[in-house]
């Protein structure tokens, strides 16, 4: 077996440990926030360093979560096929790799810019220590900390571009913060039995489906509102703001509809729309 084949095989084994879609989305929020400061794009070295350090830190954090939650994952049908519970990757292997990526990501971030490094470290700390290790198995409100950590790549990107933590970065981070409970709660309703079996406290189990749906609707709207505030602060063109108004109108319509006629499909649709909304807004920040 050649070295290249061996490496490809290892990469194929490890890749699912980083939840590539989620990591990609969080990375996009960081890049979009950085670009929104209108830094010269020609400064490609910083852009590449930002991409690399954020990717490493987010991937490391996700791997450490997978390592810690391997017992829960094994009990849930949805996650039983993940690399650790399915036996594709040994726990010690995932822990070592997760630590390596996390240290490399945070170390690189600090070397790039101390403030940026602190925010990246805060994201990792909130995600792994506060959310996963401390609160996830104790209270359904842990998702708030999941949201805080999810908002950190955006705050970090903006801090790196602007050289300081300012209100636009905070608004961007809040937009992601409000979107993340939408994501987690939608899944906790869709896989309600799975979470119950695994003994993870969730919003629908504690407060019921109706209250959870209402929280999702309100949370989605708050995410859109924060994104709008950030868009204004960034100074997007009038045309782009108009487009965001239209997209927000769609979100409002779906949120109200999901409260008036609650159903699982509508709820899942709202989650998908909110995700699409976030992605579109981030792309606008990135490109325009």
């Amino acid at each position, binding site marked *: 077996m050649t070295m290249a084949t061996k490496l490809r095989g290892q990469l194929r084994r490890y890749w699912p440990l980083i939840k590539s879609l989620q990591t990609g989305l969080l990375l996009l929020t960081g890049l979009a926030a950085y670009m929104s400061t209108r830094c010269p794009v020609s400064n490609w070295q910083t852009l590449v360093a930002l991409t690399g350090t954020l990717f490493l830190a987010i991937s490391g954090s996700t791997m450490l979560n997978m390592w810690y939650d391997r017992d829960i994952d094994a009990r849930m049908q949805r996650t039983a096929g993940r690399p650790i519970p399915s036996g594709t990757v040994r726990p010690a292997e995932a822990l070592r790799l997760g630590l390596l990526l996390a240290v490399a990501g945070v170390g690189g971030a600090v070397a790039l810019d101390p403030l940026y490094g602190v925010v990246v470290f805060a994201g990792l700390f909130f995600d792994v220590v506060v959310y996963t290790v401390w609160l996830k198995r104790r209270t359904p409100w842990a998702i708030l900390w999941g949201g805080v950590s999810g908002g950190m790549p955006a705050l970090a990107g903006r801090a790196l571009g602007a050289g300081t933590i300012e209100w636009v970065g905070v608004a961007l981070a809040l937009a992601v913060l409000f979107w993340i409970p939408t994501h987690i709660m939608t899944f906790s309703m869709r896989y309600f039995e799975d979470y119950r079996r695994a003994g993870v406290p969730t919003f629908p189990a504690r407060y019921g489906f109706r209250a959870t749906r209402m929280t999702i609707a309100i949370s989605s709207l708050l995410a859109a509102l924060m994104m709008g505030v950030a868009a204004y602060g960034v100074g997007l*063109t*009038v045309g782009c703001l108009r487009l965001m108004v239209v997209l927000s109108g769609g979100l409002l319509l779906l949120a109200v509809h999901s409260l008036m006629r609650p159903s699982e499909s509508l709820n899942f649709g709202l989650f998908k*729309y909110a995700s699409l909304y976030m992605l579109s807004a981030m792309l606008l920040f990135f490109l325009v």
Partner: protein
Amino acid sequence: MKQLSVIDRILLLFTAILAAYQIAVGIDGVDAVPLWAYTTGFGVLLLAGLLLLIFGFEALESQLVVVVSTLIPLALSVGLVWEYLPGWRAPYALFAGAGFGLVVLTRLARAGRGATITLALVHSVAGLIIFGLPLLLSLRGDVAPSFALVGLGGGLIGLGGLLLLFLKLGRPVLSPRMILTVLPALLLLTLSAFVAGFAAGG
């Protein structure tokens, strides 16, 4: 109900992107009222594309979709009348407002035949304006010839509306499967005609 195919998804995605582009670039040299009227029309087309992508053709069964989609011809026709028939601004705005209100009320009241007649009346007046006015203006030479594409878009969206109406009434001229097969392409064609027509300018 027919499931979305890969081609359907691609067509709907392009529809949404094109509508988003049109909203973002706006239309040069128009007042605030027509600009927001066109934005509403294109906005509903954008949302239609996205909601069809997310929910599939099942979205068409919702009463909300019927009500909101009425905004497409109404908003676009308000924009055209405001721009090109200044003498009719107030009466037509009144008709559009009242028409939309009636569509909402008859749908909420589940008025059956009354709801269908109201919807057909409001759609046909608005549809005729979108179809006829740009054609007439370009034939008379008041606007660039390619502005007639807006009329073509109006014709296509009218055709789509009719097909969906027949589908709802259970008396489709084409099979339900065929209607849903052509719908994404029809939406994209309609939008392309509108975007090209408005880009040509009045």
